[in-house]
């Protein structure tokens, strides 16, 4: 298939997944912000949703304080914030248009309908109906979109590139989610104050993994949470599951591609790592390293399939 179209489908997968993950991250943080906490803790909570110093800077330029209202506005509908849900969906639609000839009518319709709907929504309406309502809509539409792709799209290269984008985005987002709590996983940081249950419960819900956790592990325990989101391959959003999916897709695309080998190596590293050691030496450096490797992998993918010129 055309390399440019492969690129469009890859990004289509990424942007829809990103919109959904943003919705879940905001959802989780919003719930946490409703707990009785100090203003500093409150600001810190929201600040963690930003991935880099530059992102924080861009936010501070527009809004003096990390209030619920300012942050939710910025992360949901702000057309100037390139990673807002609005912009993710705009980019998804743009890529849908560019790759239109490879997509089914049902897929285009799904994206168009979502785009028509989100453009009709403003902050007043979000306040009126509640943030939850808006975030649920985004999650629902993302799931609908993925369902439509799975059930209507011909299997083959175009489908695989879409799946690839989705899997890699998922890996990045899970690592981002874990990063928001990176300092509180170690058992030594456990607070036996009733908050813990609520905090980890909310956290797991943001990963769509709460009920799965209860079924597998039972009691809430931060080390188990880390294990589940990092190495448990039965959880579709765990880092290892995402990288294994990526490896499978790349091998199907081209078995001997350097990126396939790279992805396989990354999966092997995660499998071989000792979680207790990682937790002791700090999750943050592990996650930073993981993200660096995912970036290198996505560069390699683009090089291998001529997606960059």
């Amino acid at each position, binding site marked *: *298939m*055309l390399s*440019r179209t492969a690129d469009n489908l890859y990004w289509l997968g990424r942007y829809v997944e990103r919109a959904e993950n943003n919705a879940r991250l905001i959802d989780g943080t919003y719930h946490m912000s409703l707990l009785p906490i100090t203003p500093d803790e409150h600001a810190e909570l929201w600040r963690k949703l930003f991935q880099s110093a530059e992102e924080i800077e861009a936010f501070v330029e527009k809004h003096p304080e990390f209030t619920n209202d300012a942050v939710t506005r910025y992360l949901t509908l702000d057309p100037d914030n390139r990673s807002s849900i609005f912009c993710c969906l705009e980019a998804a639609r743009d890529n849908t248009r*560019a790759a*239109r000839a490879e997509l089914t*009518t049902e897929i285009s319709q799904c994206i*168009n309908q979502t785009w028509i709907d989100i453009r009709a929504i403003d902050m007043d309406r979000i306040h009126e109906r509640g943030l939850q309502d808006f975030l649920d809509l985004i999650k629902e539409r993302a799931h609908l979109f993925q369902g439509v792709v799975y059930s209507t799209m011909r299997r083959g290269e175009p489908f695989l590139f879409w799946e690839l984008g989705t899997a890699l985005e998922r890996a990045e987002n899970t690592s981002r989610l874990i990063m928001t709590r990176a300092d509180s996983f170690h058992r030594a940081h456990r607070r036996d104050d009733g908050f813990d249950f609520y905090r980890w419960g909310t956290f797991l819900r943001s990963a769509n993994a709460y009920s799965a956790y209860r079924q597998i592990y039972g009691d809430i325990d931060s080390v188990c949470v880390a294990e589940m989101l990092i190495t448990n391959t039965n959880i579709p959003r765990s880092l290892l599951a995402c990288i294994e999916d990526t490896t499978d897709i790349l091998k199907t*695309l081209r078995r001997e591609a350097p990126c396939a080998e790279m992805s396989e190596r990354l999966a092997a590293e995660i499998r071989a790592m000792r979680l207790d050691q990682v937790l002791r030496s700090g999750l943050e450096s592990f996650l930073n390293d993981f993200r660096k490797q995912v970036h290198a992998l996505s560069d390699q993918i683009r090089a291998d*399939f001529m997606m960059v010129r």
Partner: protein
Amino acid sequence: MANSDEHETPKPFDEMLEPDGTVRMAYAQYGEWLQGVSKETLIRKDEQADMMFRRLGITFTVYGDAESTERMIPFDIIPRIIDPNEWDYLSRGAIQRVDAINAFLDDVYHDQAILKAGRIPPELVLNNDAFRPEMLDLDLPRRIYGHIAGVDLVRTGAREFYVLEDNVRTPSGVSYMLENRQTMMRLFPELFATNHVAPIGRYATELRNNLQSVAPIGVDEPTIVLLTPGRFNSAYFEHAFLATEMGVRLVEGQDLFVDEGFVFMRTTEGPKRVDVIYRRIDDDFIDPLAFRPESMLGVPGLLSVVRRGRVTLANAIGSGVADDKAMYVYVPEMIRFYLGEEPILQNVPTYSLRNPDDYKYVLEHLEELVVKEVHGSGGYGMLVGPKSTKAEREAYAERLKAEPEAFIAQPTLSLSTCPTWVDEGVAPRHVDLRPFVLSGRRTTVMPGGLTRVALKEGSLVVNSSQGGGTKDTWVLER
């Protein structure tokens, strides 16, 4: 019902009703249905149609409009219906025209017999911007230049059809013809059970077969692509739609490159050779090495591959010399010269302002005439005399005086009207018709076409950029 046309003479030809108010044959079944249907039903169907088009994302871009660059062409839920006899005559006329135009193009890029015979002033061809000397003495597969053509027709009476213009560059609108039909079949399935409407669904297959038939010599299973300027182009939806329907790749200039005398596309498995390009990019932009150097849309070196006969472009580079408004006057002459036949379809009498007598006449009769730019399209930059103000005419006259050869003028035709769904209910609105003619192994025309409708009461301008809409076009089977 109040008749706002009372002071206008004569009353335009109504596609559905005889002057005495009886329903014409072609509309007999439909008219009966329309009488019985409630206003509420039509309102609901209209809303459904609107939503269907929005969800499909069928939009076009209005240039020079920063506010809303993406708009939908309004779709009218009342079809335009054509009688089988009328269609027989129209389709033969359209095919005849396109055959003559293809013969003309082959001639002007080879022997130029028609110029030597003095039937067309040579300077009109040779000094024309759309004439491409780069194409001289090049033998194209099947000698076809305009593989896809749109012939714009208007009607003024029962047997009076006029050709308004020929489009043999990159005519658009066929996706609307096809989507309008899809939409009508979903909205009104019962009407298709009672009316015998000729199907048009095989358009893409026929186009693909034709493109296959003009592949470079020796290529049995050609790789065909559709080349689009990209998703910001006004007709992008159509490009994507046709690529999907034909099952070919939709490519942009950046996806193609020329190497070792061939054209390749960049694929995930490496470069892949391309043999036939259905291009929707104008000549000027198609090859920055040969034409406009600043073009980012085209493929550098493409012309050199065309010259070697290793890739076929549809339509061919240089086709535009046949369809400009100055050349239009000579199409009947082409028909006589190449086919030895009399034209089936008539031209609109046309004044060329390069001609001093015509120039004088036009300036004196601006109020009655429609004046167009020779190189214009899309209804931009035209003056509709009877609908213009004095100030507009005066300003326009200045432009005519400055550059007479850039304009032609025609009498204002009383375009036929077709019942149309508007705010007040069903009312007559002016329409035109663009059938699509395909050339390959043979020349064919789909039974249907794009009917454009001027939605504003009394307006004669049907272009989508100027507030026009579209209708499904039914050709009834015998």
